[in-house]
């Protein structure tokens, strides 16, 4: 039985159809990340699960029980907010203990529970301080501590790391992952940051305009996206999309790009597209799959290009060049290119590219066996 079950959920804000029929089934103990751009409805979905918003249609069930009409406090959930939502007039201890006191936990049990939560999050030394005396990272830990202390069934996170600076974010990400490993509870996490989604999730639910675009394990979505949107959303820098025509020649299928460029397609991956020969497609290739030309290997398409832009980051160098007529980004080793204007030989790993139907924006070949 799923721990959280959502069926055909709809939510309106006035005339705005924000959540358009979501079906989701989450097993116990799983870390699910709702990810997508601003306005895609992920926060609304989370808040509806929490009971802070009322579902206009459909149902939310926790542990098999329909909770649509239940107040948040009866749903046995805990939530961490983006702006921490700590009570400014109470000490850290009181903040964490608030929920326990509200549920009439006996007094002698409160202190040890708070202490345990504080230890877990390394904030025991801050228990007597007030929120205004704490830094962003500490505030976030207190917010998580408040959620953790209650031993709820379901944990909800609403973009908790958005207000932190980059370094702190990396740190906290690891802590949250470790927290999930230690507690083993069902957690639902909302973010717009795809790196957070990739690193934290057992399952990613990519949302777009109120609907689920695709859901599955992170690597599954990364390597086998079903739509152009998914392919372009995950991965940094994002995937290159190059218009091309599907053709057939003596050695099999190939792609004809603008400016007379032609790339051969390995049959194993793209053989099923015979009936599409002659149509326009979109070639999707990730920057990391374009490398400096090495030894000959099957599936590698060689090209010679003039580098237009060089952006070194220290460990790698990102370069821009024209493939066909489209600006393309490749991720090369640090010293592969010195300056723009250089002419270089590159290999495109055609075993990893995907093809997309330009009109439907659906992926027609992504390596998954059909």
């Amino acid at each position, binding site marked *: 039985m799923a721990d959280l079950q959502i069926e*055909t959920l*709809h939510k*309106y804000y006035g005339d705005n*159809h924000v959540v*358009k*029929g979501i079906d989701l089934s989450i097993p116990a103990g799983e870390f699910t990340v709702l990810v997508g751009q601003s306005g895609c409805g992920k926060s609304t979905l989370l808040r509806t699960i929490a009971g802070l918003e*009322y*579902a*206009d*249609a*459909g149902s939310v069930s926790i542990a098999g029980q329909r909770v*649509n*009409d239940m107040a948040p406090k009866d749903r046995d959930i805990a939530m961490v907010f983006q702006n921490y939502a700590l009570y400014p007039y109470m000490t850290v201890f009181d903040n964490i203990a608030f929920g326990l006191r509200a549920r009439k936990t006996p007094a002698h049990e409160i202190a040890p529970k708070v202490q345990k939560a504080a230890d877990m999050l390394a904030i025991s030394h801050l228990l007597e301080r007030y929120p205004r005396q704490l830094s962003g990272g500490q505030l976030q830990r207190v917010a998580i501590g408040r959620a953790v202390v209650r031993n709820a069934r379901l944990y909800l996170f609403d973009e908790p790391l958005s207000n932190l600076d980059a370094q702190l974010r990396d740190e906290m990400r690891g802590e949250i992952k470790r927290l999930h490993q230690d507690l083993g509870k069902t957690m639902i996490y909302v973010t717009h940051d795809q790196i957070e989604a990739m690193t934290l999730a057992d399952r990613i639910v990519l949302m777009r305009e109120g609907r689920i675009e695709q859901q599955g394990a992170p690597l599954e979505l990364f390597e086998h996206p079903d739509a152009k949107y998914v392919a372009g959303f995950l991965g940094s820098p994002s995937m290159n999309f190059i218009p091309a025509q599907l053709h057939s020649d003596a050695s099999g299928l190939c792609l004809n790009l603008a400016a007379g460029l032609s790339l051969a397609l390995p049959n194993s991956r793209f053989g099923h597209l015979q009936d599409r020969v002659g149509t326009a497609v979109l070639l999707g290739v990730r920057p990391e799959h374009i490398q400096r030309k090495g030894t000959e290997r099957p599936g590698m398409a060689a090209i010679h290009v003039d580098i237009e832009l060089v952006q070194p980051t220290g460990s790698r160098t990102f370069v821009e060049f024209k493939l066909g007529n489209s600006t393309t980004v490749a991720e090369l080793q640090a010293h592969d290119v010195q300056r723009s204007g250089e002419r270089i030989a590159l290999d495109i790993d055609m075993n990893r590219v995907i093809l997309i139907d330009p009109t439907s924006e659906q992926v027609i070949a992504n390596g998954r066996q059909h």
Partner: protein
Amino acid sequence: MGLKACGVVSVNKIPLSYRLRQHLRLVLAIAVTLVFLFPVYWLAMNSFKTADEIYSSPPVWWPASLQLNNYLVLFKDGDAVSVWNSLVVSTISTVLAMSLGTLCAYSLARFKTGGDHLSNWIISQRMVPPIAVVFPIFLLYVFLGWVDTYIGMILLYTAFNLPYVIWMMRGYIQDIPRSLEEAALVDGCTHWEVFWKVVIPMCKGGLFATAIFTFIFAWNEFLFALVLTRTEVVTYTVQVTHYLGGQSNFWTKIAAMSVLGTLPVFIAVMFMQRYLVRGISLGAVKG
């Protein structure tokens, strides 16, 4: 709703208890508003009654006809001039207070003239009970021969309202991002030009609202008017009290006069909805 179009079969019903609460709240809100408004209605309605209707027991709740006789009497007898007096005094003092006050406020906000103490002292001026200073002012005015003169009243109201204007405008000016003024300075404006071309336009709303509240304060003022006017510059507030007799009151005149006096304020407030809270609370609450 587009839900049917999506093929959704069952829409969730909003729980009955919630809808009931909403309706109850609406009823209560309307009731409260009516209760508070009734006295005003009573006043307005009385001003349209004939003398017989007013002095009738049990009281008439809705006059037979809306007649303006009471108002006409006021104009004929020349009592309505008091409204004119109020208008003159209030308007001029408001203009003066606004001009000087905004300038002061700008200086306080941007150049920290006098530091914290000055601003605290200014707000404490607002708190001074008029009763305490009425007497010395009266004596001063007798000495200067300013009793019952336009000049006297105008200057008084200006001085009295100045702290309020400074306090409010300082708040509004502080809300303007400094970077705007700095950009103008870099672009080549003098401080004076920055004031006129950047600051003033940016706080137009606040200016307007403060002016209205200043006007209202002067307009409604009673104590000083009572003390410092005799026959020439009687303001409408004092005029109304002239009608209060020992045994019986000229309700016709009182009602009409009160309505006349309240009308401008009422209109002004209708326009200033947005700035209401801030203006009344001395800027304690924004918006």
